[in-house]
């Protein structure tokens, strides 16, 4: 037993106190015919060997490529103090702060998280966290149905496909979800089709609870959020904005354009990509919707002696109190990741966050020029921040072969939006403040070589040579 304290003598002592000879007696209530077959598993592994196994598995992943992959998860510089503070056992080995007197650290940190994010999204209330951006968006969709007592939600096709799929699963219990198509061509190509939105909102006898759009959208493009919100509100629907938090240092926040709910993925705020999670679901709303917001909320109050203190509050929304009438079934959340985001924001500061966002935009401008210069121009004309779609002949095969040249050339759009002819040979690429000129040059050079002579001279790695 790697972590157990019991000596044979300890076990004897406990058995004797219970008046039994073997621990089997404590399992006598499992009916004989239902007892388990033996566990067919390997034996215990000493720590030294386990470490080698884990290191070996980690080494089988390749994280050395020049990466331009975003699609909802972004590489950023995380100041090392973030993870060093997270590694304090008082943070990560505590449970949900059910006993506020001995959980003020967690409670204050959550209150501060709620406050920091409220400032960032410019809204009144922020939940203590959800699983990720997709589930926060799904919960936002459910909130609009509860608040309006309507059962139909419209989601822009330019919202991340995983978020739309998650919405569809969460709506599997009987609610309706309709997609707002993309504008096919012209200056607004790749953004939410406003004329289609108006038609969907006007369908007789099918009132809309909420309209969901992303800023920037999945293709990296900036959406006319104020206009989408105006159309939603004119039809009596609520407006949900799906945001990327770093961008809010430079882009208008949801509160500024009339969103009722903001949802988003907090991963860019100091959280490692780690192949999908744990991340941070951001969910925020106006005061008017505070009793509809699911998940834990922490408020500031005082203790019996008048000292400032923090406590979980408005608990009547939650499953352990309200059971089948709760706003959601959520229990475990992502508190430790909310803490990471808070430490990140406190460390990087408002000016630093603006620099992160603006630097990403500046790097992306260079990337765009470099790729256009080798025959991979942008697909869309609309404004973007730091992620954009490019046209590459035979995109899927080229993407695959560029890996051999040391470049992870973003993602293949046809895998995510297969029924958009415009995106058939599209790659979605991004740059952030960590994207270097060397990497940009390596990408452009590799792509140029690949387009000139597919598959030829792909070793040694172009990126290594460029370095």
């Amino acid at each position: 037993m790697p972590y157990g304290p019991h000596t044979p003598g300890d076990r004897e002592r406990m058995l004797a106190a219970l008046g039994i000879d073997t621990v089997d007696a404590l399992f006598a209530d499992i009916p004989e015919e239902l007892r388990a077959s033996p566990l067919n598993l390997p034996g215990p592994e000493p720590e030294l060997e386990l470490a080698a196994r884990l290191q070996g598995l980690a080494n089988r992943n390749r994280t050395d490529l020049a990466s331009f992959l975003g699609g909802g998860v972004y590489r950023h510089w995380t100041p090392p103090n973030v993870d060093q503070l997270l590694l304090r056992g008082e943070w990560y080995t505590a449970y949900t702060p059910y006993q506020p007197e001995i959980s003020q650290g967690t409670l204050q940190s959550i209150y501060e998280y709620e406050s920091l994010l409220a400032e960032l999204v410019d809204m009144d209330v922020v939940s203590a966290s959800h699983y990720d951006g997709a589930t926060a968006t799904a919960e936002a969709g459910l909130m609009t149905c509860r608040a309006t007592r309507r059962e139909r939600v419209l989601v822009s096709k330019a919202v991340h496909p995983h978020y739309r799929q998650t919405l569809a699963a969460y709506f599997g219990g009987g609610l309706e979800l309709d997609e707002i198509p993309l504008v096919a061509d012209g200056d607004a190509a790749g953004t939410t089709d406003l004329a289609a939105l108006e038609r969907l909102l006007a369908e007789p006898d099918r009132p809309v609870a909420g309209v969901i759009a992303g800023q920037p959208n999945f293709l990296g493009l900036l959406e006319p959020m104020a206009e989408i919100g105006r159309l939603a509100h004119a039809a009596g629907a609520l407006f949900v904005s799906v945001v990327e938090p770093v961008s809010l240092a430079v882009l208008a926040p949801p509160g500024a354009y009339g969103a009722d709910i903001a949802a988003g993925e907090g991963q860019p705020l100091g959280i490692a990509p780690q192949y999908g999670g744990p991340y941070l679901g951001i969910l925020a709303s106006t005061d008017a919707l505070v009793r509809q917001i699911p998940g834990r909320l922490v408020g500031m109050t005082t203790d019996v002696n008048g000292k400032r203190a923090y406590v979980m509050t408005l608990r009547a929304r939650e499953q352990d109190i309200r059971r089948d009438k709760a706003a959601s079934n959520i229990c475990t959340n992502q508190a430790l990741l909310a803490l990471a985001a808070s430490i990140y924001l406190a460390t990087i500061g408002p000016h630093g966050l603006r620099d992160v966002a603006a630097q990403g935009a500046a790097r992306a401008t260079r990337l765009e020029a470099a790729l256009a210069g080798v025959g991979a121009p942008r697909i869309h004309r609309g404004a973007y921040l730091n992620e954009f779609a490019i046209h590459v002949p035979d995109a899927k095969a080229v993407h695959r072969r560029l890996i051999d040249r040391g470049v992870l050339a973003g993602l293949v759009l046809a895998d995510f939006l297969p029924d958009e002819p415009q995106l058939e040979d599209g790659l979605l690429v991004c740059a952030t403040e960590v994207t270097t000129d060397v990497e940009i040059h390596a990408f452009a050079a590799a792509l140029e070589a690949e387009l000139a002579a597919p598959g030829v001279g792909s070793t040694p790695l172009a990126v290594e040579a460029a370095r």
Partner: protein
Amino acid sequence: MSVVGDPLQPTLFERSRAGRGGDKIPHPPKDALDRIPAEARRQTALALPEMNEPDVVRHYVNLSQLNYAIDTGFYPLGSCTMKFNPKINEWAARLPGFANLHPLAPDEIAQGTLQLLFELEEWLAEISGMTAVTLQPAAGAQGELTGILMIRAYHRSRGDIERDEVLVPDSSHGTNPATASMAGFKTITIPSAADGGVDVEAFDAALGPRTAAVMITNPSTLGLFERRIGHLLEHVHAAGALAYMDGANLNAILGRFKPGEAGFDVMHFNVHKTFSTPHGGGGPGAGPVGVGEKLVPFLPSPRVFRGGSGRYRLERPEERPTSIGRLRSFVGNTGVLVRAYAYLRAHGGTGLSQVSDDAVLAANYLRKRVGEAYDIPFDRACKHEFVASAAGIKKRTGVRTLDIAKRLIDHGYHPPTIYFPLTVEEGMLIEPTETESVETLDAFADALIAIARECETDPELVTSAPHDAPVGRLDEATAARQPNLRWRAMAGAEMPCPD
């Protein structure tokens, strides 16, 4: 501050001074944002705190010291399995090969993680006796939703669309009925029998052609193994319904009971309970779900597959049209799953059996000791946890379980779960786990017994507890009546600042 002075901390916002901090990121060129249209840009300055790194570090180190945690002491929080969180697991999850891998990385550069996930699924299938496992759900409650949505899809695939009810025992976790509602079902609550198990008569009466599923926690939230589980499962299936097992209490039965073998159709695992991944002050967790043969077609997408050549791959979108789809973005809480995998490998099959044996032995020993001064409503062999009650103490002295819990803080312990399950008067659900020594168990029992005495001799001392915590009991009524849920310069400034 720190070990001397007022331990409470001002907020980040009060610590902020304009002009502090910076120099983490190179300044971008001045024209970086010129191509962004004015109407899309932020018009008001971002009022986040401005701090230098040393102040940030002190803020969070000092705040951390206001927390009770497994790493600081015994945490017998029933139903939460607060066992030691091994440190190699933290090391492993931070290995750059795991931590820096993008979730949309092509399979060919993600082979290490895909192999780990595939093997983890195999281990969990063996432990649970299930046919297949999905690692996608982000937490136990999401695992429940995954399971119930699969059950819904199963019935629909057979044209069986009248089933709109889910049966849930009254002692269940709140997530069970909340999940059923979220998936569009009506919850039917089944009362408990006198022995703490499900009332079979009421159960059988509620079962019928409208029953889609039954959700059972086994061992139950009272820490008792459901002795009539064979009967219950038989009747569930005879009624055409499926059986969901809430795996929150799996720590009691590793190697002793495989839900899939016994006839459960689907269950979730709480890896942040049974498999030692840290709770993080409320999260993250991960809630893998195991299913029997019937539900395999409906598993969320993408699944992880091993090809003939030993290469691993993610299922492609649309590859399996019967899937209920996706419950979250990407693959799952992979960083959490790396920790769970390390825990399983460290123990192996024999170690896992020992975990449950020791957890159950410790719980029974503690039950015996606590029984010296408290009522034990179900005084028979428990599994990994047991319920004690202060109903007798309250009757005699007026002191409530809540007060006893708060007094435990003065004695240096995190209180157990209190007033849950809802079916026990003045209940406390105590779960010691297998990683606490017999000395710790004895010291905790001694503290509870001493408090029971205090209730008789000095009840005021108990009802006014805690006395030695950073703050006293909270004004929760005002917090709910006039919620202050975010810092605003005015609202915050009205509150006394600890600095």
